[in-house]
């Protein structure tokens, strides 16, 4: 069955997007990313440590020819810093597809929606293809789509919290109203959360901490791979209705005592 995940001008078969943060080493990042079978991976943009550069670099392990690299603006708290960051990323690797996230404070890491909208407008004007991290707010999601973002990525719960989907109804409403892909980003803690996101109709899930902080990172990467597939299939298959009472699974006629 052909089921392409289309984001802007890009096409993917996998509906799992992974992050590259929080891993204990580059080798584990590489192995878990391979195990996830994801095709898109987020990276952060930071100053090179001039006094201690280290011998190795993330991109020695995550081959940009093999993966679609999605630079993010993690750590940005205003639109200007986010735009500067992504201009640098585009120059570094030629990447035009980007993840915009502008945060509100360091405790909640909730999106600063006002600055996010401002940054999204600036980036779209500079021909970036913007996948935008935001609140699970249907009004804001629509606004970001109108601005020209190629995907809207509502949070399931705060970044790194692993608490699953706080507001599944909103994820469904956002998806029903959207004409661009909806990606649940942040909050997914284990496989059932990822499956649930896709069952609700989300087009993809973006997962980092749940894999990177698992005891066995590669096994969790496989679990997420399968969960995203299962959730997607269940969504496409169309689930049965929920009923208040039982409905017998075996025929209710032809009993031997009749």
């Amino acid at each position, binding site marked *: 069955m052909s089921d392409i995940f289309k984001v802007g001008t890009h096409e993917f078969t996998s509906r799992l997007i992974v992050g*590259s943060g929080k891993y204990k080493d580059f080798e584990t990042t590489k192995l878990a990313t391979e195990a996830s079978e994801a095709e898109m991976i987020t990276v952060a*943009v930071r100053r090179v440590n001039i006094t201690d550069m280290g011998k190795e670099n993330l991109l020695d392990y995550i081959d940009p020819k093999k993966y679609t690299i999605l630079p993010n603006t993690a750590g940005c708290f205003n639109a200007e810093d986010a735009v500067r960051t992504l*201009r640098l*990323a585009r120059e*570094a690797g030629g990447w035009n597809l980007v993840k915009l996230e502008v945060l509100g404070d360091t405790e909640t890491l909730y999106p600063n929606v006002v600055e996010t909208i401002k940054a999204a407008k600036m980036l779209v004007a500079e021909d970036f293809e913007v996948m935008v991290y935001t609140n699970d707010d249907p009004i804001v999601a629509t606004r970001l789509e109108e601005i020209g973002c190629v995907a809207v990525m509502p949070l399931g719960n705060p970044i790194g919290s692993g608490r699953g989907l706080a507001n599944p109804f909103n994820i469904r409403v956002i998806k029903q109203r959207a004409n661009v892909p909806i990606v649940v980003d942040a909050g997914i803690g284990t496989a059932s959360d990822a499956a649930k996101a896709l069952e609700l109709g989300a087009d993809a899930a973006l997962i980092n901490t749940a894999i990177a902080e698992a005891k066995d990172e590669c096994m969790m990467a496989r679990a997420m791979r399968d969960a995203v597939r299962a959730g997607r299939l269940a969504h496409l298959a169309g689930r049965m209705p929920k009923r208040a009472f039982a409905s017998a699974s075996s025929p209710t006629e032809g009993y031997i005592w009749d």
Partner: protein
Amino acid sequence: MQIQLNGENTQVAATNLIELVAELGLEQRMIAIERNMEVVPKSEYTGTQLEESDRIELVHMIGGG
């Protein structure tokens, strides 16, 4: 000359960006440079002269979600 490199006052021998990249040993790295808030394309490194007190940001990609 002295420039502000990634937020630190730094003495460099380089006179342009291509020399700066070589001086830091970053020729093989996937990096990007911002000079005084403007991104400089790689094709312009040779022609971009460093000036005293330039603010240079030199970035690369690291792990992140």
